[in-house]
């Protein structure tokens, strides 16, 4: 059974791509199928007709017209680039909300969404109020902390002074007692010496009296 339809087989024949097997099939079909054979004849006839087709010369025609439009296009081709850049710029300006204003010979370009002057002042005021409140709170906290710190410092100083004065007094008393004790010790020594002296004097006196009495 054939694997190729008539159109496929004819196409292969026209392009001279028939394999030996396909060629056999082609020839068999030409013999058996008269309609196919007629198609092949017509194809061959058209092919021959096309091959011997006598091409007359081309009449005069406006060749320059095919070149000039391109030249004209070249001279204006920069327009497409410019229009693209302009469009892109316009999109950027719209997206960024750019505003251009002139006043008193001064040109101002503002980016961002345009706000009214009053809204701007209100916004600034509210920001300033918030800032002021923050500062106030911070200052109050700072003062409280400082006060607390001062109280603690004063208390510590008082305690220190009290404890240090007690110690000094104790030391002073100790010194005084030591001094008194030393004085007493000196006095005792002095009195001892005095008594001793007196004893010696008494002894001498007694001895003299005795001798005198003896001598007498």
């Amino acid at each position, binding site marked *: 059974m054939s694997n190729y339809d008539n159109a496929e087989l004819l196409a292969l024949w026209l392009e001279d791509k028939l394999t030996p097997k396909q060629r056999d099939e082609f020839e068999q079909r030409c013999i058996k199928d008269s309609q196919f054979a007629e198609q092949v004849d017509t194809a061959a006839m058209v092919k021959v007709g096309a091959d011997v*087709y006598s091409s007359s010369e081309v009449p005069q025609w406006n060749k320059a017209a095919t070149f000039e439009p391109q030249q004209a296009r070249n001279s204006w081709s920069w327009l497409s680039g410019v229009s693209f850049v302009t469009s892109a710029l316009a999109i950027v300006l719209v997206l960024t909300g750019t505003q251009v204003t002139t006043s008193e010979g001064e040109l101002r370009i503002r980016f961002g969404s345009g706000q009214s002057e009053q809204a701007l002042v209100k916004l600034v005021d509210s920001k300033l109020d918030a800032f002021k409140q923050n500062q106030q709170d911070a200052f109050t906290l700072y003062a409280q902390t400082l006060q607390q710190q001062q109280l603690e410092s004063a208390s510590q100083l008082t305690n220190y002074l009290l404890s240090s004065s007690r110690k000094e007094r104790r030391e002073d008393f100790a010194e005084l007692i030591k001094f008194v004790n030393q004085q007493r010790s000196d006095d005792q020594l002095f009195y001892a010496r005095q008594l001793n002296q007196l004893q010696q004097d008494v002894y001498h006196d007694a001895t003299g009296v005795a001798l005198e009495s003896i001598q007498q």
Partner: protein
Amino acid sequence: MFEKSDEQLIEKALKGHKKAWFSLLKRYEKPVYHYGLRMTGNNADALDLLQDVFISVFRNLSNYRGDGSFKGWLFRIAHYRCIEFYRRKRPMQGLDDAPEIPCDTAPADQRIESTQRNAQLVSAMQQLPLAQKSVIELKFFGHFTFEEIAEQTGMSVNTAKSRLYSALSRMKILMEVDYVEL
């Protein structure tokens, strides 16, 4: 002997060398003109189509990548310009419809009737629908393969083959009629 290649001429034409463009034009004007002559059936339309095709080719010259042959690319443009031409001229007629009027100016044109066989062949072609006529034209006169025809006309290879087969069936009848008339 030292003829420049199509690609060299295209490169120069793109740089604005008019002479290179005209050399390219001279190389292909005859096949395109006769393509137009067989597709439209008369000289005036063939010349209009010729100009139309080359204007389109020049405008799209920078898009030619050199992937396939320049001739194939040129005839692809010619095919689409031809379809456009038919749409302008016969807006109600489909690509697969047989022409209502077999031929606008019966191939009485002197240029077509240079031989009796030319006249018979072209006359028969004029009575084919555009889709079939294109395949006959590209296959027998343009000597393109079915793959190239499919690429140029935007149809599948199998469609191209079956269209050629159908066209030949019709051509057979038409040429027999023409032969009897002659």
